[in-house]
């Protein structure tokens, strides 16, 4: 075995140029496949890490995926809200330990603004139970205080005390139809979490009400800006409604009954979802696209493997002489067969190893940027089960595919005997 392996190795070294190209082709295909797979699992992990410790999310009836997306991931928007009295009734339920109401709908230079109360900083957990922590400052205390996520601070270059104004709706630019007459003051900056929290501006629910004084019709009353701040502070700023409610239960065991009770609430229709369940539903939707991507990249690996086959098959003609020399010096047909199978296998193994190294190198290099830009947390560290499976599969497939030229060469060498007519 091993004398043949070293022979195969020497033969590959002799054809370095084309062998390196083939190895690179296999490596790129393997890297693509692993990259897709790692982005997929990274995205899943990132989504899964975004919310933890919240047993139910409650909002107006909509799709459960939709409710999850807008309440937790700040994607899309709510079509209806939950009225304040209903929120109070839910908060007062005996089986519910804590609630955090949130109000969404405004933005600041493309970042979503979320109105909530101080319980948010206490109860919202991410990444398997980590609480939000402050890099600087403290939660909002005054009406016009704001707490910003780490990315908001970094991207916009904000620090404590920086004034900021909000825009109505989700437009990225200040269209002049905003809340620019009600400036906020930054009192806290959160530490990075790798979740949408990093891209959120947090204010109090009362602040949301306050900046919408004069907006009761849905559009801005031209006189709204004439109301002085002192007068606004004297208003009852209890919100009329909230967008969604995060809730924690007294006992986890009651989650299904509590959910049913809320879903069948008499009076205002409501919908409660279990975050993990809604997430699973979301994966169901995205898994079709994921599988398509994985299938495409698996086909790219197949193309890489075919390039091994091509390179060996095209070399066979010029190697006829070599095969008969080997036969003359005592190589048996199965030695010829194994020599070529080993060559294919070595190219496959090298390509897979290079591809794995490539993906890990790229992840190490780009992970911080990807995490910051897209919130996709790539797993770093030693090659894992997926890498080893791909290595195994590509090696096995290349050995298998090597059998095709190997059989051809073996048959030919038997027919050629000692005298190849060149």
């Amino acid at each position, binding site marked *: 075995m091993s004398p043949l392996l070293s022979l195969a190795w020497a*033969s590959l070294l002799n054809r370095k140029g084309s062998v390196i190209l083939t190895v690179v082709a296999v490596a790129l295909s393997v890297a693509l496949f692993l990259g897709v797979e790692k982005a997929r699992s990274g995205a899943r992990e990132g989504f899964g890490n975004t919310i933890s410790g919240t047993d139910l999310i409650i909002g107006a009836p909509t799709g459960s995926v939709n409710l999850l997306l807008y309440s937790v991931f700040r994607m899309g928007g709510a079509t209806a809200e939950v009225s304040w009295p209903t929120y109070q009734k839910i908060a007062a339920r005996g089986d519910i330990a804590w609630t955090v109401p949130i109000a969404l709908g405004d933005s600041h230079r493309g970042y979503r603004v979320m109105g909530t109360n101080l319980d948010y900083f206490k109860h919202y957990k991410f990444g398997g139970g980590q609480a939000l922590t402050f890099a600087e400052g403290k939660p909002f205390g005054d009406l016009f205080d704001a707490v910003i996520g780490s990315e908001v601070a970094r991207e916009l270059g904000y620090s404590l005390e920086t004034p900021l104004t909000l825009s109505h709706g989700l437009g990225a630019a200040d269209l002049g139809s905003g809340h620019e007459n009600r400036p906020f003051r930054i009192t806290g900056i959160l530490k990075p979490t790798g979740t949408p929290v990093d891209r959120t501006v947090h204010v109090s629910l009362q602040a949301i009400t306050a900046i919408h004084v004069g907006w009761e019709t849905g559009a801005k009353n031209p006189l709204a800006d004439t109301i002085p701040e002192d007068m606004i502070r004297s208003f009852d700023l209890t919100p009329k409604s909230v967008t969604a409610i995060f809730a924690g239960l007294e006992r986890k065991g009651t989650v299904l009954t509590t959910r049913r009770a809320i879903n069948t609430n008499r009076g205002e229709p409501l919908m409660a979802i279990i975050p993990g369940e809604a997430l699973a539903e979301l994966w169901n939707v995205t898994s079709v696209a994921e599988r398509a991507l994985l299938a495409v990249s698996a086909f790219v690996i197949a193309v890489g493997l075919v390039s091994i086959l091509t390179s060996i098959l095209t070399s066979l003609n010029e190697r006829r002489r070599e095969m008969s020399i080997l*036969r*003359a010096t005592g*190589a*048996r047909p199965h030695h010829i067969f194994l020599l070529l199978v080993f060559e294919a296998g070595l190219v496959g193994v090298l390509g897979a190893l290079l591809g794995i190294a490539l993906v890990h190198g790229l992840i190490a290099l780009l992970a911080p940027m990807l995490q910051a830009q897209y919130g996709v947390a790539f797993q770093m560290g030693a090659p894992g089960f997926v890498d080893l499976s791909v290595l195994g599969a590509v090696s096995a497939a290349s050995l298998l595919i090597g059998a095709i030229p190997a059989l051809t060469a073996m048959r030919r060498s038997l027919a050629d*005997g*000692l005298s190849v*007519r060149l």
Partner: protein
Amino acid sequence: MSGPVIEIEGLTFSWKHGPQVLDIPAFGVEAGERVFLRGPSGSGKSTLLGLIAGVLAPQAGRIRVLGEDMSALSPSRRDRLRADHVGVIFQMFNLVPYLSVTGNVLLPLRFSPARRKAAGKDAASEARRLLARLGLEDEQLLQRRVSDLSVGQQQRVAAARALIGAPKLIIADEPTSALDADARDRFITLLSEEVTRTGASLLFVSHDAGLAPFFTRAVDLAAINQVKARAGAAA
């Protein structure tokens, strides 16, 4: 070893769909003999060597090599017999391009434990010794790619490869046809010396009748082959 190394009786061979190439009622090589087999190209010399080496099988008749009846052996047993006991030298392009000079000389040892054993523990220095005997001692030369060697040097490397591990039979197929007269004579002299020293038998085929004096016996293929050579017949 005493007794015949090669014994042929009533051998016939034809390539698939081709005319008969060989019909040899009787031919033999004794142990220690150096036999020169002369024949023009296309007379079936290479085919005969292929039969003796066991890569081809005759349609009829018997070939005994080292006492083994080749037609009775399985292909893999014939392969093993060749690997263990036969050294082969071709006309040209004898060497595996991706192996070093010594790597080429040591090649038969990869496939034959018997010759590995015969070459001794330090096979690499045995290879060097053989190369030196054949006039290739320059260390620098041994480091070069085999494709950079002259044809004469390549043929001597091939001879060293055929000789390593003390096979009992060396067969050479026109190994000097690409050499000039001086190189040719030197090559045959060195090869003969080494073959004599190891006690092997040599079967050397060529079209060049002028080589006959270097051997203990010269045979004309036309004299033992009853098939008349035809133009265009397989070599």
